[in-house]
C-alpha cells in the first residue's frame, strides 16, 4: 500500500493493475488464449472422464432402477442441488459487484460468470430428476395442485435460468470474444466468430452493452432467487413431512450465495496460481471477497438460527421431529459439519484481518465452505429422499440416515467433474482477465498529487 500511496489509512489494497497500461491488459488476455497449455487439457480430460463415469453410473444406478425408489436418486439430487448452490450462484456475485460499481471487481467478474457455462449440467440433472418429484395429489405441494405441477413450473424456471445464465455470460464476454475473433488464429475462429456476432465496438454498441450487461445480470439474479426458492420448497421442504418453514428458501438462497462466493475465490486462486493472473487477481480482490465470505458465513448462521430458534421454542411435535431428523438425531454429524464448515470455521478464521488480507486465507476458507455446502446439501437432500411416505403431514417415524454407496459417489463426482470440464474447455475461448472490463477501469483512473503524496483518483461515471 505504501508503495502506491493513498491519503488515508483505510483504503483497499492497490496493486499493479492500476500501474498497467491498457495495452498490457490486452496482451495478457491474448496471451491467455494463445498459451493455455497441456496442464489445462489434461485437467479437462480428467474432469471429462469423471463426468462420463458419472453419467454411466447414473444410467447404471438410478435410471435403470426407475423412479419408484426415490432413495437411489438421492445423490443425483445432491449433485444437482450442489451445482445450483455453487456454480449457478457465482454469476450472481458478479452481478452484485457490477451493480455496486466497485472497480476492484473488474478482473473478478469473469471468474464468477464463467461458471454459468455449467448450467447445462444441473438442467440435465433436473430433467432426469423430474420423475422423482411427487405429484400434488395426496400430499402438500407448494403448487396447490396447479396443472402439471410441480414438473412444468420448475422446468420452466430451470430452463429460464439456464437461458439467462448463458445470455449473461455471452453478453459480458462479447467485446472480448470479438477481440479473440479478430486476433486469434484459425481453428477457433468459426465458433468464436459466430459467438462474437456483429460486435464491432461502435459507440452505440458500447453504450448498449454497458446498459444491458447490468440488466442481464439483474435478470439472472431475479430468476435465480425464485428458482432457488422453488427448489428449496420442492426439493427439500416438501420431501420432509412437517418441514414447513418460511425462512428455509431464504436460507437456501443465502447459503448458495456463500458457496458462490467461495467458488469464485477458489477459481481466482487457481487462475492466480496456474493461470498467470497475478497482476489482476491480487490482495485487493481476495481481501474484499474474504470480507464478503465472512459476511455470508454470518448470514448462514443468522438464517439457520432464525429457523432453529423458532422450532426450538415452538416445540410442537412436528417441529421437534424435524429438528431431530435433520439436526439433532439422524443427520446430527452432517449438521455439525455443515455448521462448522459453513459458519464456525469461516468465522474463526476470517475474523482476523491479516488472514482476510491474504491470498491463502480466503482461499482456504473458500475451500472449506465449498465442502461445507456440499455436506449441508447432502444432509438436506439425503434426508428428504429417505422419507418413505411423504404424503403425511407430520414426520411420525424418523427414518434412518442414508449412507451413500460407490455409485452415489461416482454420480456426485461425475456431475462436479462434468461441470469443471465445461469450465476448463471454456477457458480455451474466453480471455482472462476480462480485457474490456479491466481496461475500462484503467481509462477512468488518474494519478494525482495530493498534499505530500500521490493519490489515485477514479472516475465514477453515472
Amino acid at each position, binding site marked *: 500500500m505504501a508503495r502506491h500511496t*493513498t*491519503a*488515508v*489509512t*483505510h*483504503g*483497499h489494497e492497490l496493486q499493479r493493475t492500476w500501474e498497467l497500461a491498457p495495452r498490457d491488459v490486452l496482451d495478457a488476455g491474448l496471451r491467455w488464449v494463445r498459451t493455455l497449455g497441456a496442464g489445462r487439457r489434461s485437467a479437462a480430460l480428467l474432469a471429462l472422464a469423471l463426468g462420463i463415469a458419472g453419467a454411466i453410473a447414473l444410467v447404471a444406478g438410478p435410471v435403470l432402477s426407475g423412479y419408484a425408489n426415490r432413495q437411489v436418486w438421492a445423490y443425483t439430487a445432491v449433485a444437482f442441488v450442489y451445482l445450483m448452490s455453487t456454480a449457478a450462484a457465482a454469476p450472481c456475485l458478479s452481478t452484485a459487484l457490477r451493480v*455496486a460499481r*466497485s*472497480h*476492484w471487481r473488474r478482473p473478478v467478474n469473469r471468474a464468477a460468470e464463467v461458471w454459468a457455462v455449467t448450467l447445462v449440467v444441473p438442467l440435465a440433472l433436473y430433467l432426469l430428476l423430474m420423475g422423482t418429484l411427487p405429484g400434488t395429489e395426496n400430499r*402438500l405441494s*407448494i403448487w396447490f395442485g396447479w396443472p402439471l405441477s410441480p414438473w412444468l413450473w420448475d422446468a420452466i424456471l430451470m430452463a429460464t435460468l439456464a437461458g439467462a445464465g448463458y445470455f449473461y455470460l455471452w453478453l459480458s464476454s462479447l467485446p472480448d470474444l470479438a477481440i479473440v475473433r479478430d486476433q486469434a488464429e484459425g481453428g477457433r475462429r468459426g465458433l468464436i466468430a459466430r459467438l462474437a456476432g456483429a460486435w464491432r465496438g461502435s459507440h452505440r454498441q458500447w453504450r448498449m452493452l454497458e446498459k444491458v450487461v447490468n440488466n442481464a445480470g439483474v435478470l439472472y439474479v431475479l430468476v435465480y*432467487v425464485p428458482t432457488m*426458492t422453488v427448489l428449496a*420448497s420442492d426439493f427439500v421442504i416438501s420431501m420432509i413431512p412437517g418441514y*414447513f*418453514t*418460511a*425462512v*428455509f*428458501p*431464504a436460507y437456501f438462497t443465502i447459503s448458495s450465495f456463500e458457496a458462490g462466493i467461495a467458488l469464485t475465490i477458489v477459481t481466482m486462486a487457481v487462475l492466480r496460481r496456474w493461470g498467470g493472473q497475478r497482476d489482476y487477481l491480487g490482495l*485487493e480482490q481476495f481481501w474484499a471477497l474474504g470480507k464478503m465470505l465472512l459476511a455470508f458465513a*454470518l448470514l448462514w448462521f*443468522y*438464517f439457520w*438460527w*432464525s*429457523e432453529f*430458534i*423458532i*422450532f426450538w*421454542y*415452538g416445540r*410442537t411435535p412436528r417441529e421437534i421431529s424435524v429438528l431431530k431428523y435433520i439436526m439433532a438425531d439422524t443427520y446430527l454429524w452432517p449438521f455439525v459439519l455443515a455448521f462448522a464448515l459453513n459458519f464456525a470455521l469461516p468465522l474463526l478464521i476470517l475474523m482476523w484481518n491479516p488472514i482476510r488480507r491474504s491470498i491463502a486465507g480466503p482461499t482456504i476458507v473458500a475451500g472449506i465452505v465449498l465442502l461445507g455446502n456440499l455436506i449441508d446439501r447432502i444432509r438436506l437432500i439425503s434426508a428428504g429422499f429417505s422419507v418413505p411416505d411423504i404424503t403425511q*403431514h407430520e414426520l411420525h417415524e424418523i427414518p434412518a440416515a442414508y449412507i451413500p454407496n460407490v455409485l452415489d459417489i461416482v454420480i456426485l463426482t461425475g456431475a462436479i467433474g462434468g461441470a469443471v470440464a465445461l469450465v476448463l474447455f471454456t477457458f480455451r475461448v474466453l480471455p482472462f482477465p476480462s480485457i474490456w472490463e479491466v481496461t475500462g477501469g484503467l*481509462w*477512468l483512473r*488518474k494519478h*494525482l498529487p*495530493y498534499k505530500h503524496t500521490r*493519490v*489515485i*483518483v*477514479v*472516475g*465514477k*461515471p*453515472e
Partner: protein
Amino acid sequence: MQERHHLGEEAITRELFRPLVSTPAMMWVGFIGLGAVLAIFVFAVSWMIYWGLGVTGLQRPNMWGFMIVNFVFWIGISHAGVMISAILRLTQAEWRRPVTRAAEVMTIFSLMTAMLHPVIHTGRPWRTLYWVFPYDFWRNLWPDIRGPLVWDPSAILTYLTGSTLFLYTTLIPDMALARDRTTGWRHVLYTILALGWRGNERQWKMQTIAGFLLSGLILPVFVSVHSIVSWDFAVSLVPTWHATVFAPYFVIGAIHSGVSAVVTLMALMRWLFRFEHYIRLEHFDAIGRLLIAVGTGWLWFFLLDIFFAIYPQEARELEIMQFRLFEWPFNVLTALIFIFGYFIPVPIWVFQRFRRNVKIMFWTSIAVNVGMWAERYWLIKPGLMRKYEWTFDWNWYRPSIVEISIVMGSFALVGFLLLVFAKIFPPISVWEEKEGVHFAQQLQVGKRRVSAIVREF
C-alpha cells in the same frame, strides 16, 4: 455530478450552522404544533398509568395492540441510522455524507420512543424497570433469560448506547467548531461536548478509527435488535406469528421503512433549512436505488411469509390468512401494504427522473411508511383476534382514544426531539461535508468530464 456547488469551508460552516442561530418561521410552527400533540401524548400516558390499562381497548385475547404495533414501527425506523451511517460508512458510499447525522439522530430518538412503548404498556410500569436489571440478588431472583422480553431491552439498550456513542463520535469535531463560534450557554455546552477537540492529526485518526470500529460493532446489534423484536412474536405459538422467516423479514422491513423515513427527513430538512446545496438530487437518486433493492428484498420475505402461512395448509393458519387477506378491514390493509409498501414507490423509483424529484421522493417515502405501519398491524393483530380454534373468544380489537393519542403523540415526540436537536446541533455533519468536498474530484476521460473520488474503489 455537475450539481455540486463549489463552496468554501467557511460558507459550509455558516450555512450548516444556520438553524442554530436563526429559526425559520416553519420551525416555530413545528415547535408549537408538535408541542401541542406532545402535550396530548403526555396526558394520555399519564392517564393510562394513573388508571391502568383498563383505559385501552385491549382485552382477552387481544392483549397486545396499538402500542406494540407502534413499538415495532419505531424500532423499524430506528434501523435507518445504522443502515445509512454504518453500512454506508464501511462501504464508503459518498452519498451518505449529508444524511448520516439526521439518520443517526432519528435512530436515537425513535429508539427512545420505541422503548417507551413496552414500558408504559405493562401493567406495572414502575416495576418494569426492575426487570431490565437482575433485581433480587438476595433471593436469587433473576430475569428469565429464556424470554424474548429480556433479550429485547438488552438488545435495544445496547443499540441505543452504541448509536449514541456513534453519533457523539461524529459530533465531536462539529462541537469544537461550534464552541469556537458561540458565546454564552452554548459556548459552555459545546466546550463540554467537544472534549477538548483541537483537530490535530492524532485526534482525527482516533476519531476515524472509532467511527469505523463502532460501525463494525454496531452492525450485529443492528441485526439483532429487530430480529429479537420479531422473536417476541415468532417464538410464541400464535398462528401466523410462529414463522421462522420473521427475523430477516422484520430486519429488512425495518430497513425499508427506516431508509424511507430518512428520505422523508432529507426532503423536510432540505425544505425547512434550505439545504439544497448539501442535500442534492444525486443523494435522493442514490438512496432511491438502494431502496429499490431493499424494497424488493422485503417483498420477497413478505411473500415467503404469506406463502408459507398457506402452504402447510394447516387449518389454524389458513383461518387467519383467510381472515387477514379477505376480511374487512384486513383486506384493505393487505392492499394498502402491497400498494403503498411496494407497488407505488418501487416502480416509481426505477426511473431516475422520479428519483431526482424531491416531491415525488417525499411522498413515496411517506407512502412506504404508511404501508409499513399497516404491515405491522396486519402482522400482529389478526393472529390475536382469531387465535386458533377458540371461536368462543373471537374478538375484535378497537384501540381506545388513549392508544390512538399515544400513537399520534409518538410521531410528535420524535418530530419535536428532532427539531430541538436541530436547534442545538448542526443537523448535517459539517466536517463530513467538508471531507466530501476534498475527496470529490473531476476527471477528464476522453471528451467527458467525470465525477471522481479519491481512494474510492
